[in-house]
């Protein structure tokens, strides 16, 4: 051990006064640290200003109009007072539901494949690349795609077409976040399952997916939140309707369908005070809807963990 000591440089702390323990702003690094803390706090506050002003405006302008009638009545005609957007809420729920029904199982199973595939698997790399490209996909193109594949073939705007467009937008988010969540499952848990004599399928179903479920749900919620707010792809596909998405007593998926996003888009640009106020209220309802879905998802995943 002694040779190491001999090779050491002369004491680099020579002349440093270790007796001074008091905090002092005269020390440059203390001053710098304080300054940086102030900058970080200031920037955070700055970033919060637009966020809070949007939320505040939403509650301020939208909250005034909030009433039960909004949820039960149909949109008013120009110059008509009152009315609601119950059909748009129903339409948004139906189309986001359809989109989730299509994209969540497909996305999760794709993620299982990506997470289990070996690194040199070409198909996996190509799929992952495509999913990453799709995350930045302009949403209007998803609408154009659904227009070409569903609207033109079936001959009309429909909730199905809208659902497909939204599903295309949700798929990459669900897939990529689910893959991340699956990869976060510790290798030792996988080993434990395999060591118990679990097949690959059993390992995925009984260990990987349950363990990764909170992360997967987070991804699903993100995707749902995005899909619920999309307007452009719905303009080409579901269009809008002033009526309930039903035919007789049944839900009808093959007719033009209203949605909150398109309602906001339509009403916000109208020269009628009632419609503009309704657009504000619809925006608030949309935000609250997404919030409720998010909270529900979080509660669900928390229960999953405790089990």
């Amino acid at each position, binding site marked *: 051990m002694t040779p190491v000591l001999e090779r050491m440089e002369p004491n680099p702390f020579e002349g440093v006064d270790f007796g001074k323990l008091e905090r002092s702003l005269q020390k440059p690094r203390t001053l710098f640290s304080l300054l940086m803390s102030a900058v970080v706090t200031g920037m955070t506050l700055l970033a919060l200003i637009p966020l809070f002003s949007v939320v505040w405006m939403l509650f301020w302008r939208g909250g005034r109009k909030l009433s039960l009638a909004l949820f039960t009545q149909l949109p008013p005609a120009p110059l008509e007072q009152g009315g609601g957007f119950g059909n748009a809420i129903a339409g948004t729920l139906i189309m986001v539901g359809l989109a989730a029904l299509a994209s969540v199982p497909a996305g999760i199973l794709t993620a299982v494949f990506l997470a289990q595939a070996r690194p040199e698997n070409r198909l996996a790399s190509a799929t992952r690349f495509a999913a990453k490209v799709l995350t930045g996909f302009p949403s209007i193109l998803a609408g154009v795609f659904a227009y070409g594949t569903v609207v033109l073939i079936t001959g009309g705007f429909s909730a199905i077409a809208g659902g497909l467009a939204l599903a295309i937008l949700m798929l990459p988010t669900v897939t990529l976040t689910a893959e991340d969540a699956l990869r976060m499952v510790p290798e*030792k*848990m996988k080993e434990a399952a395999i060591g118990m004599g*679990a097949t690959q399928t059993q390992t995925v179903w*009984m260990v990987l997916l349950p363990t990764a479920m909170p992360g997967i749900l987070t991804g699903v919620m993100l995707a749902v939140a995005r899909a619920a707010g999309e307007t452009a792809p719905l303009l080409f596909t579901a269009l809008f309707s002033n009526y309930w998405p039903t035919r007789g007593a049944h839900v009808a998926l093959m007719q033009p369908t209203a949605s909150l996003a398109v309602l906001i888009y339509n009403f916000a640009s109208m020269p009628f005070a009632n419609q503009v106020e309704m657009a504000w209220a619809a925006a608030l309802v949309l935000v609250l809807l997404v919030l409720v879905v998010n909270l529900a998802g979080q509660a669900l995943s928390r229960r999953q963990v405790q089990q």
Partner: protein
Amino acid sequence: MSTGTAEVKEPPESPEAGDGVVIDCKIDKLFYGSFKAVRDTTIPVKKNKITAFIGPSGCGKSTVLRCLNRMNDLVRGFRFEGHVRYRGKDIYHPSIDPVAVRRYIGMVFQQPNPFATSIYNNVAFGLRLNGYKGDRHAKVESALKGAALWDEVKDKLHKSGLSLSGGQQQRLCIARAIATEPEVLLMDEPCSALDPIATRKIEELMTELKSRYTIAIVTHNLQQAQRVADQTGFLYVDTSEGGRTGYLVEFGESKQVFEAPQQKHTQEYISGAFS
């Protein structure tokens, strides 16, 4: 998915070797890719005995253990020459299903690795895998009792397995492994992440378990091998071919290996000349 319930309960009856050898392991060469990890290692694991593998780090003792239930299949580039006969059947024969092998030859790992689910579900995992139709509660209880954990957890079976202490987690993993009543338990340094008191508990448990199970254990703790093992194999690293290839130096009754080692390397290792 799980069709082999009946098989799992009753292992196929085939004549055992007369001297009670349950796993007859003979590794001629073992590669990871082009890296030769182990050579010339023959270890007979005997029924209701504890067989310990000792040796310095990197001597391949864990690798050898993981050969015994084909856990090495998960490692890319794994290649193996030799045989591992479980009750006379070569488990590396192409007709053998490695998944089925692992149901008879269970494993406890170095790091306690309970699933992120309740204590009960952890133990019931193997029962669910095999579609066990009988009284699950009774099985879970007896497995937890078998792992000396029942009294500590009986009032919180629904709590997460991850909420337990390290030693408890490891006993939970043992309970999980014995719930399906495998014939052999492989333990890969089961105490290396535990404190001395938890270690002592696991050691006592192993001694109790050997009346029902056959145990093979890897340990870097010589005292542990001396305390619990009936027979001991000493592996050492051979660097003569350039790489670091592990091989078996000496194998025998623990008493003999520790008190009267025949080989120079064994003597040096046991007397603490290197580690």
